[in-house]
């Protein structure tokens, strides 16, 4: 009985906040696994709140658009647009349309709501055109975060191998 009551208040809470029907999603991007509590349900695209956009790929929604450092992709926000809608006062941003604009590959398991995004081509240019070593952040076996850029000033031999 007590359980039912809790459930009841939870449903009421959802009704008030106007996100009934919202569902969660898991987003994979590089080494990140981002759990998104609420998305705007959509058959093909991933719509998230602007703060979750930043958690996913560091893009920040500003008046001039979705921005990552100096790069800004224009986004109309005074009306519904392909990347932005407002529902019951809540703003939603379309992560998959942004990825398509950036020519960033993505693969989705719709059944489980898991969205996996590739490396953004714009981040690949210094490597592919300039021979600059792509930076990475990976955890070593001691649990320490290893960042390639922390090794500036040293020669680094980067080796891959496998047990298989």
């Amino acid at each position: 009985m007590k359980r039912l009551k809790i459930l009841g208040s939870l449903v009421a809470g959802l009704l008030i906040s106007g996100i009934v029907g919202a569902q969660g999603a898991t987003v994979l991007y590089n080494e990140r696994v981002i759990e998104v509590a609420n998305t705007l349900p959509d058959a093909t695209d991933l719509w998230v709140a602007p703060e979750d956009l930043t958690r996913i790929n560091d893009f920040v929604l500003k008046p001039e658009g979705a921005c990552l450092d100096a790069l800004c992709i224009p986004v109309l926000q005074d009306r519904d647009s392909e990347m932005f809608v407002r529902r019951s006062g809540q703003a939603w941003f379309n992560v998959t349309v942004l990825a398509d604009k950036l020519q960033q590959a993505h693969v989705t398991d719709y059944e489980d709501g898991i969205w996996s995004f590739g490396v953004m081509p714009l981040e690949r240019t210094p490597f592919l055109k300039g021979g600059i070593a792509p930076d990475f952040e990976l955890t070593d076996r001691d649990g320490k975060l290893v960042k390639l850029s922390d090794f500036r000033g040293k020669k680094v031999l980067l080796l891959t191998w496998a047990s298989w």
Partner: protein
Amino acid sequence: MPVWQAIYEELKTNNFEIISVAQDSGGEAAAGPIFDAANVSYTAIIDVNHHISALYNLVNVPSGVWIDEEGRIVRINEGTYAKNHGSFGTDEYAPIVRDWAVNGADSPYVWDKDQVLEHIFQRTEDAERAQPAFLLGTHYFTHENEEKAEYYWTMAQELDPDSWNYLRQDLLYEEGGSAGPEWRARRSAEEGRGETYYAPLEIEEQVNQ
């Protein structure tokens, strides 16, 4: 691995680092004991998502990348066995690593930018999509959903048929294993077409620097 450990211990005071990254979705259980057995003191990473291969367009293991003091690549995409193991491997790579660790930019084995760009493996547009598919497969593998892991790992292989890593990581968990009949058949088919399993080592001294 003992060869790299010896070179590292000898030359680490020479502004030289080794970052060794296992491309192993099986994680610590798969790759950890091998690092332990070699008793490595350089940076050891187990990269379940094969992130480094994705970033550096590497399709096979072992592979090596030389990165200079300014973060520029000066050699890339070579089959970097430290020594000859009879039917495979080479004794030629470790000595040029040693030369570079000692001499840096003055090493005759350092490539210029154009040579580096020429040696970066060229991926198709489809192959770019393989990375998020593999990432998704590994997510399922880690969460013990074998059916979906297999589905997305297979998708990654179909999108990027050049990647031996994607193929063999998957084969490891199938009958026959990562060096079994399927791998052998694919390898001989490729070599039959006149292609090489490893990008050939090009160890010539650069004289025009």
